[in-house]
């Protein structure tokens, strides 16, 4: 049973993070496509902010559910990695939640030292030691599939980012609203010093 290395697990994590950022950027690009005015954009961004606030919760649910159901997150499955418990079985839901909440939190302390622990001989992170789990290499030689996934996700991220820039920069409604807002703010500031002048003339 070969254990997953630090670099394989890092790439798996990068794939998962790229997936999350792709979802966020695509959502933002879709908002841009609807050509919103300032108030519509504010509403959409506030809903997105509510989602972003719960991003850790969404990530915990994603990690825990996929790991207990399929043995790993998308990133790990792409790299042919599987998370197993002490008995060599897939994790139970509670153990999976524990690994991905308390475990990840502890591993993240002291400058992510718990993750760098994988570089040791036993290839176990602090969250593995805490939950009594091990990440094994179930399917070796997945370089091609991994490359395809990484390139696809990077492309989606870049395309979504470009989409956001293009749609927002060509949105005339939004530009007018912002210009109007800037004008109203600057006119308030200009009005202020007129009062003492009136007093002086009096």
């Amino acid at each position: 049973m070969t254990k997953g290395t630090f670099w394989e697990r890092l790439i798996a994590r990068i794939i998962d993070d790229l997936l999350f950022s792709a979802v966020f950027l695509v959502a933002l690009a879709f908002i841009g496509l609807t050509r919103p005015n300032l108030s519509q954009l504010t509403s959409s961004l506030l809903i997105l902010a509510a989602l972003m606030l719960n991003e850790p919760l969404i990530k915990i649910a994603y990690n825990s559910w996929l790991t207990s159901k399929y043995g790993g997150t998308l990133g790990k499955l792409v790299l042919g990695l599987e998370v197993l418990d002490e008995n060599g079985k897939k994790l139970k839901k509670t153990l999976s939640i524990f690994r991905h909440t308390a475990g990840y939190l502890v591993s993240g302390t002291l400058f992510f030292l718990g993750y760098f622990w994988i570089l040791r001989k036993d290839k176990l992170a602090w969250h593995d030691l805490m939950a009594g789990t091990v990440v094994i290499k179930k399917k070796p030689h997945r370089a091609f599939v991994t490359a395809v996934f990484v390139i696809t996700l990077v492309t989606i991220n870049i395309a979504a980012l470009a989409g956001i820039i293009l749609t927002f920069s060509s949105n005339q409604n939004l530009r007018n609203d912002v210009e109007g807002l800037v004008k109203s703010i600057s006119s308030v500031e200009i009005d202020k010093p007129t009062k003492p002048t009136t007093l002086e003339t009096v």
Partner: protein
Amino acid sequence: MTVWLILGLGLLIAIVMGVIISLLLRGWAVGSLIGGTFDALDDRNEINFATVAMRGRRSFKGLAKLYFFPSLVAALVTVPFILTSIYFFISNSTVLGIIFISLTMLILMIAHLVIAIAEIWAERLVAIENMPWQQAFWQGLQMFKTNFVRTMQLGIVNCLTGCVTGCLSLAVIGSLVATLVIFGLIPIIGWALLPLITLLIIAILVLGSLVTALVLTFKYTTWSILYRELTMAGKEKMEKND
């Protein structure tokens, strides 16, 4: 309006999840520490991160419940008092409002004192004896009553240890910061000290958490040793009576 409601709901969910996770994490950490101490005292297991973490996994749910439910009950008890004081403030009876607010604070203080006292022994009863949290809570209070003097003695020792360590750490940090400030006032040296200041801040953060961890470990270990002595003495007494 709906958008703000969604944002509020999102914030609420994030806070609730944060509380739940911190309770679970505290439960695991305390369970590991107590379990590890007992394993070390009994020479039962090889003591390392993995074996100690396993002990924590067995008891973290019970401990999280022990931390959550008594505090929830204490908070719920104060709700009628808070509502009454709000009513008095609205109806311009400021004096009565202040009296009720003071009463609320007093109740909260007493409740948290009782909870803290009960938790000293209840944590060990949950982690070592696998007792349900309610039973452990009441038995913890009972243990405090029957072993009042020894509990207070160790409480004072632990408090003093915490105070002395805190003061010493503050003195060390203070003198380091003061030296840097003095050198920083010299114009040429000032900018050159910037990387050193950054390193110092990081070092203070890391060392601060390490010192806190040391003090906490000392406290939990001494309480565990006393618990072991008390329970062993109790068992011996029972065996003699039999």
